[in-house]
């Protein structure tokens, strides 16, 4: 009764073939990541030093360090986060917990999807028009960060909304039936269980914000600045733009320098990601249902 028929054997072979094939495809995904990291470390690893990270560029940016750009990127990301995280989470909570299912909500959802699809260079031009000129912020950290925030807002909203909706409806109703308001329910039951997913959205946003070049080059990032920004109304250098500049715009740059800048940039992203992932795992370990 358990003897294998020809058909059984055939089916099993097909299955193992498919599995192997798909496994290879999955493995292919890791290759680019490894290749990028290996190239950067081999070619730019020699650049990395305390001095490189914490001193100004010299000799027309062909030598010296990257400190103003490093600090500028931190400024830009921090200010962008300060705007987009509260705004995005608030919008996600409204859409998931309060919004009635009507044409207005559907239009808002459509707008969010479309906002995510707008090319970053278009965001840059919007930023120039809105923040630099109309609001009169000039080319400044504030204008650049606001542009970045608008650009990454859909990521935060969509990820937060998805994780809010993943909290079972039964939890909400149990809480409502105790006489809790919607807001009390959100604070006591919904948010604590959605926070790890919301963090995922923020992680994605940080990664994207750190690396973006187009939206900031017209709105607040400078080619070269001999001083550090003192407020959000100053211009600043940024790592991503600096990488573009030393790779293509400045003659006689030693070959290792752009790779070193790129390595710092990618390390920053990876560092942020790992901190957030660790935090997320800690939070997820506390939640079970």
């Amino acid at each position, binding site marked *: 009764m358990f003897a294998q028929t020809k058909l059984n054997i055939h089916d099993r072979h097909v299955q193992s073939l498919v599995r192997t094939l798909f496994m290879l495809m999955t493995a292919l995904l890791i290759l680019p990541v490894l290749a990028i990291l290996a190239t950067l470390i081999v070619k730019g690893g020699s650049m990395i030093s305390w001095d490189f990270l914490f001193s100004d560029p010299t000799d027309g940016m062909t030598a010296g360090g990257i400190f103003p750009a490093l600090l500028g990127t931190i400024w830009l990301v921090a200010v962008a986060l300060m705007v987009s995280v509260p705004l995005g989470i608030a919008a996600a909570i409204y859409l998931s917990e309060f919004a009635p299912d009507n044409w207005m909500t559907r239009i808002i959802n459509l707008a969010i999807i479309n906002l995510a699809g707008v090319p970053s260079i278009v965001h840059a031009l919007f930023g120039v028009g809105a923040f630099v000129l109309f609001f009169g912020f000039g080319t400044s950290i504030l204008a650049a960060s606001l542009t970045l925030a608008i650009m990454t807002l859909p990521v935060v909203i969509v990820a937060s909304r998805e994780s809010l909706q993943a909290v079972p409806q*039964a939890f909400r109703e*149990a809480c409502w039936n105790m*006489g809790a308001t919607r807001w009390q329910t959100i604070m006591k*039951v919904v948010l604590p269980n959605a926070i790890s997913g919301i963090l995922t959205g923020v992680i994605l946003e940080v990664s994207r914000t750190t690396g973006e070049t187009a939206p900031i080059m017209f709105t607040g990032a400078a080619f070269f600045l001999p001083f550090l920004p003192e407020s959000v109304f100053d211009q600043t250098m940024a790592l991503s733009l600096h990488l573009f500049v030393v790779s293509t715009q400045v003659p006689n740059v030693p070959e290792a320098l752009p790779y070193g800048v790129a390595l710092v940039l990618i390390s920053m992203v990876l560092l942020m990601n790992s901190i957030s992932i660790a935090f997320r795992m800690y939070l997820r370990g506390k939640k079970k249902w």
Partner: protein
Amino acid sequence: MVGNNSEPLATSAASGSASAVKLSVRNLAIDYAGKPALEGVNLSIHENEIFGIIGPANAGKTSFLKALNRMDMFDNHMHVLGDVQFNGRSVNKLRNVYALRKRIGVVFPLPVGLPMTVYDNVALAPRLSGIRKRAQLDEIVQRCLTRAALWDEVKDRLQSLGSLLSGGQQQRLTIARALSQEPEVLMLDEFSIAVDPVTTMRIEDVLKELKSEMTIILVTNLVQQANRLADRTAFFLDGRCVEIGTTQALFSGQVKEQKTQDYIEGRFG
């Protein structure tokens, strides 16, 4: 009690006799997006009685419960017509539905252990009404868990997750949580589905004790459970309330409709 919220529900001060009307339902009709689920229900539920509702699936029993504490607000498709009065106040006209829900504890067929500790599950409702003192919360948690016949099993792990308890324990946790609201009415919807027979009997004993303090509405698909517990029983069928009577009368054959007799004797349903 609900403190300084507007529209406090009069806690039927005139009561005292055991037969004061707690809930009165007139011409209740419920539909889901135009599809009728219940119509023409007229009945009153008295203080300190266990009011049983029996009937097969799709009879409208759960919809009936949902209309009592305005759960229709959770569901865009659910529409309620007619009048439900709680302590003489129409629930459809209340602005402070939160105070209404606080006074009506709800237990559903499938237990919902909120993903927080056992302690926090039971302390949630008191905290929502502003109780902060640890000693007071401790006392409420212990009292409610004890009355729900769960204290002995969880007293050493109050800080573990409520959602990790077994099904029967979670159901008793749900009951403890409902009791922590200090409700005037406790609605139970087929609470014994996910609970083993021994636990069911323990909960039934608890309900008999609670009757002296609150009104209990017991929806059940176990006819004998209604017979054991209910003072009066209503029989729902196909979206209508077919018959209401004292449990003793219904189960001793004094029925007006043959269908009631047939259902009680297990000939259909």
